[in-house]
């Protein structure tokens, strides 16, 4: 019975993937992609990968979907022109050959996997008590493969710098994105008042539970960033200026603490990112606590986009509303 359900979900996924690729309208394709992410997280639940399922739903479906929707909004004006340009038969043939070739190689690789698949799970289970955390995923992310997580955090910060660098000179240091306005008595403003208190509690719960149960800073940061975006889109708060010292400090605190802990490890435990005996848990908690503001700020500011409003010291709403966009009046 459950195999049947998984089979149906897998077929649906394949169909949705095709539909997303073939959709003529970019908005429709993004809608398909978001549903694809949600269905994929269902499949991860079936495979007992709750941590991956949470991440897929939060980042794959939610955050990436929101980023793509923003891109669709910006491309709206050029979409028709892009569709009217048809590439030549040769280009299309090469594209088909290339994608079929890549797919074939991937299929061959999957079929050639040794049976049973190579796994490090027993070693992780054996050494997990030394880290003091109960969730093996957290143990892998912050102890056994901490370097990967450090690089991930740094990549996110660099991505944000990349987005910011798209700002025109006159807006450098200003606020990103449009200033959203919405009916202060409307549904959106109501939602933006009711939901964030609940969302903040759930986000912090996921963060705290991540030590011993599925959850963690990434899923938590996505929820917290979403709450912040909701408040912004309802016009109840504005995006921060990107030259704000606190914002910048919050963005770099995670990687800095991570590197500091790593250097401490090199000094006391003999290896970069090695944790001294008995102190692994507090070190991991310190890194997680420092990474949370970084991730919340980076994820939300990535959604906000490049600075698009001037850096006037006091941008009052009437004098400099910027390119205001009405969201759900």
């Amino acid at each position, binding site marked *: 019975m459950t195999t049947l359900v998984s089979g149906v979900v897998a077929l649906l996924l394949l169909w949705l993937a095709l539909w997303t690729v073939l959709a003529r309208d970019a908005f429709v394709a993004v809608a398909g992609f978001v549903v694809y992410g949600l269905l994929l997280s269902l499949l991860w639940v079936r495979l007992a990968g709750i941590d991956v399922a949470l991440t897929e739903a939060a980042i794959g479906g939610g955050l990436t979907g929101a980023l793509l929707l923003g891109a669709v909004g910006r491309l709206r004006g050029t979409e028709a022109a892009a569709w009217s340009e048809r590439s030549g038969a040769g280009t299309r043939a090469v594209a088909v050959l290339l994608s079929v070739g890549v797919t074939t190689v991937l299929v061959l690789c999957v079929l050639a996997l040794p049976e049973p698949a190579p796994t490090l799970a027993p070693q992780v289970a054996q050494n997990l008590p030394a880290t003091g955390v109960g969730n093996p995923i957290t143990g892998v992310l912050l102890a056994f493969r901490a370097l990967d997580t450090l690089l991930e955090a740094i990549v996110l910060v660099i991505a944000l710098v990349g987005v910011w660098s798209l700002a025109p000179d006159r807006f450098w240091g200003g606020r990103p994105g449009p200033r959203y306005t919405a009916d202060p008595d409307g549904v959106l403003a109501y939602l933006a008042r*009711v939901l964030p208190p609940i969302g903040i509690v759930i986000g912090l719960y996921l963060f705290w539970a991540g030590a011993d149960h599925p959850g963690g800073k990434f899923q938590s940061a996505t929820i917290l960033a979403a709450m912040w975006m909701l408040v912004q889109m309802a016009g109840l708060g504005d995006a921060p200026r990107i030259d704000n010292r606190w914002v910048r400090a919050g963005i770099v605190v995670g990687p800095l603490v991570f590197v500091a802990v790593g250097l401490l490890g090199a000094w006391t435990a003999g290896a970069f990112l090695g944790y001294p005996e008995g102190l692994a848990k507090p070190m991991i908690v310190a890194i997680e606590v420092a990474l949370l503001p970084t991730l919340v700020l980076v994820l939300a500011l990535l959604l906000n986009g490049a600075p698009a409003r001037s850096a006037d010291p006091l941008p009052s709403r009437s004098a400099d509303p910027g390119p205001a966009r009405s969201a*759900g009046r």
Partner: protein
Amino acid sequence: MSVVLDAFSIVAIVAGLVFFLAGTVGLLRFPDAYTRLHALTKADNLGIALVVIGLLPQMDGVLSALKLVLVWLLVVLSSAAVSQLIARSVRRQERGE
């Protein structure tokens, strides 16, 4: 006792699924965005309520049951708000604003 609870769960969840089915049929068959939203939100809210009520006896503790109820309330809150927002944006588009 557990047989009675299981039977209750099955009846409630199946009834909930019937409402989901009705909402989906409405989404596919109704002529415009407003009536589609109407069908979807009314039927799905009832559907998810019945599914949650059906699942409650199957939870292994009061805390899990409370979490389930919280999820239900959040889904109802967000779906109601989002359907309002969609309807408003459709109306704005129709007026050509």
